[in-house]
């Protein structure tokens, strides 16, 4: 990595971050677009959950990780405390790997 490459990556990333907070009052958005922007975050987060639970690089991540995420997700949906859900997810994945499940 060179300093220039890091600066371009950092500057571009900051530009993505700062647009919303700076521009949201200046651009007049329709009700439809406002709804879409608020739901866009939910949609992107769910897509991140799905891809990071199921895939590693360009292929399937194996069963251990999605099994852990599913266990934690079910616990969270059943109103288990956050910490219990996260620890259960991590423990499920770790135990499955220990047992040789990939």
């Amino acid at each position, binding site marked *: *990595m060179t300093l220039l490459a*890091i600066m371009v*990556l*950092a500057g571009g990333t900051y530009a*993505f971050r700062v647009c919303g907070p700076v521009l949201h009052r200046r651009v007049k958005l329709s009700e439809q677009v406002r709804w879409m922007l608020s739901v866009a975050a939910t949609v992107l*987060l*769910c897509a991140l959950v799905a891809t990071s639970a199921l895939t590693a690089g360009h292929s399937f991540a194996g069963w251990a*990780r999605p099994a852990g995420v599913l266990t934690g997700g079910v616990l969270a*949906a059943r109103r288990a405390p956050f910490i219990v859900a996260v620890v259960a997810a991590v423990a499920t994945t770790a135990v499955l790997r220990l047992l040789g499940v990939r």
Partner: protein
Amino acid sequence: MFIIPTVRSFWRTLELDRPLRRDIALVALADGVVGVSFGAIAASGGQPTWVPLAMSPTVFAGGAQFAALYIVLGGGGLAAAVVAGLVLNARLLPFGFAVADVLDLRWPAKLLGSHLVLDESVAFALAQRDPARRRAAFLTCGVLLFVVWNVGTVAGVLAGRAVGNPDALGLDAASPMVLLALVLPTLRDPRARRAALLGAAIAVAGTPFLPGGLPVLLALLGLIAVGRSATGRPDTDRPGAGGRVPPRAEGRA
């Protein structure tokens, strides 16, 4: 004279947010471990010490940092590394709009706060209904993650190869799990749920064929499809179409 009620209300806010702070601390712990592995992988891969130390505070986005680092360590070009990182981070643009109300502050605070737009801080903010709690959750999460991410990177650089594989501990399940728990309350809205499920399916289906970051952005097609199919009444839940909608509970994440 004004000080006492101010202090009291501030204290009450802190009291109210104690479970929230515990949840944020847990997320920070998991992200700190990822920061350690970033520093360790960069150092043991032969990058100069200053590279991870410069990347973590300025880029401050785990996925993009790892992607750029792996491309360079794998012999890829710098341009490819930068482009991959930027594509991964393009999702921060809509995230910035989603938390724009939270960052409706004076200019220096707005510009500094924008650097804290992350998957986790946005997810914590969206899980809160009350505006003051939204802002508190976003800022607390953002600042704490900035600290642990950078401290973790330094620790990883110092530890170098000594750090084992975090996957063996199952830690790779923590980050999708955290985001899932945070996003669950927003999925009670049937149209958001439909858009999210469709988008997630598109993203997973695209992952084998597309460069990293793009599949997640393509999930927005799910949103467009649902938004188009239901023009007119954006805020009406439709009982009967998707079963009964449970009463909205206060965000507890």
